[in-house]
């Protein structure tokens, strides 16, 4: 399954290349906007412009890496009834899908590799303040991202249609992950909401640790582990209900 996901990423090369081009455009745009609003201010909300640009570059690369194709695949296979073949395999359904996503991410990263220097050039990057903390929190953040994508996709066993929900989920999660604005800038109620939601672990938290905006990693790591465990339980529960509801379309 991992290998299929990997190959699929390579098969849709032009798709990925387009994503890379828009990624570069996005990073460039963000750089220009933030440079302009900072003007001659040395720092705002505890972030210097230099740290902020590094943050944004990183957060956008991360959002590319945490993009979960698996919900589209699951949606398609539930719609067409092909999900039958997945269920017939002797390996757990969710495990197959998670493996697929991991392979797909690996393939996407491989294609992304040559673009990274361009992105870094267009954006800007600094030396990591806490490299280990970054890798750890981002890896856990990735697990949360995959779990959430699986959870959203499981809704398809009830509703058959998750296309629109996944799109809305992606837009909202990207926004609250702080891909374009660090959470430190979110005002009032929006800031509280962003703090509570788990999306910040896919973008803001790792990137903020990288640039040294967050120094103590023990707190975030503990909360992340709690999220992973909680989502794990929720997934198991949802799945035990969902697979009893399986309807094979056109079967």
């Amino acid at each position, binding site marked *: 399954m991992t290998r299929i996901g990997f190959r699929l990423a390579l098969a849709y090369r032009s798709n990925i290349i*387009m994503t890379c*081009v*828009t990624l570069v455009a996005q990073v460039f*745009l963000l750089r220009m*906007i933030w440079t302009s*609003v*900072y003007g001659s201010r040395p720092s705002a909300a505890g972030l210097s412009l230099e740290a902020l640009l590094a943050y944004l570059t990183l957060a956008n690369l991360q959002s590319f890496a945490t993009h979960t194709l698996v919900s589209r695949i699951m949606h398609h296979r539930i719609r067409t009834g092909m999900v039958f073949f997945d269920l017939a395999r002797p390996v757990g359904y969710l495990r197959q899908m998670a493996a697929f996503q991991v392979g797909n991410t690996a393939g996407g990263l491989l294609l992304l590799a040559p673009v990274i220097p361009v992105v870094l050039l267009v954006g800007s990057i600094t030396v990591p303040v806490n490299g280990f903390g970054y890798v750890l929190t981002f890896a856990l953040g990735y697990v949360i991202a995959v779990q959430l994508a699986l959870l959203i996709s499981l809704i398809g066993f009830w509703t058959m249609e998750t296309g629109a929900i996944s799109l*809305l989920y992606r837009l909202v999660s990207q926004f609250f992950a702080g891909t374009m604005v660090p959470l430190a*800038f979110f005002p009032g109620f929006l800031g509280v909401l962003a703090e509570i939601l788990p999306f910040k672990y896919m973008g803001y938290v790792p990137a903020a640790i990288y640039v040294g905006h967050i120094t103590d990693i023990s707190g975030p790591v503990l909360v992340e582990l709690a999220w992973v465990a909680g989502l794990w339980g929720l997934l198991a529960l949802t799945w035990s209900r969902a697979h009893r509801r399986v309807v094979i379309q056109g079967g």
Partner: protein
Amino acid sequence: MAEILRSLRLYVLLQRASARGAMQYRLNTVIGILSGAVWQGTGFAFIWVVMHTFPSLAGWGLAEIAFLYGLRLTAHALAMIPMMSVNDIQWVVRDGEFDRFLLRPLNPLVQLMGNRMGIAQFGDLLVGVALLVVAGQNAQVRWSVPLIAYCLVSVVGGALIEAAFFLALCSLALRMIDTFALRVFVDDVFSKFGSYPMKIFGGTVEWLLTFVLPVAFVAYVPSSILLGKLGNAWALAAPLLGVILIALAYLIWRRQLDHYQSVGH
């Protein structure tokens, strides 16, 4: 003239049919419009959050940026609602369906445009018009009848500029040149870069966005004039450019059409 009116009448009939088709899946249509609106909504939420901390972006306030954003979005929606189904052209050509269009006594472009309706673009229109109205009241503009008229004209002009690039790129599909990726890119540049004051890009990029891919003329130039940031001398440049470019795009389309070879079915 009679020919154009006849095409227009048939186009409206075709679009009405595709609207009826879309309404067969009512929930899907509603969700489609909603997702268009949310997409644009999060785009604007970004600006709003940034400007909460920083009150000015290259000398533009929040209401002014919102106005610029709304103007661009409305122009984009007006361009894409009728043009959306032209996006399918490479499939229409590849499946040989285009041959059928050529046999019918109606301009093939009009037929292509009437094929399917842009649904999510109605969400864009909703957000765009709402922003334009709200921001128009909050920004320091002394609205008068000529000014409102100019605003409407410039929205149409902006829509024509965007539609022109879209049409020109689409027409290459008639000769089996796949421009889908390029179209996505151009659309991305229009929507990402068009909603900000060009000044922030500075130097080369500002020049490129003004004279090579005239993103600046879609919304930046007209809203600069409406907000009193730019002299009136430029006022007619944007709508005029729209008319010129759409005429050019149509010429390109006609030229590609002359060279059309069926895939042979």
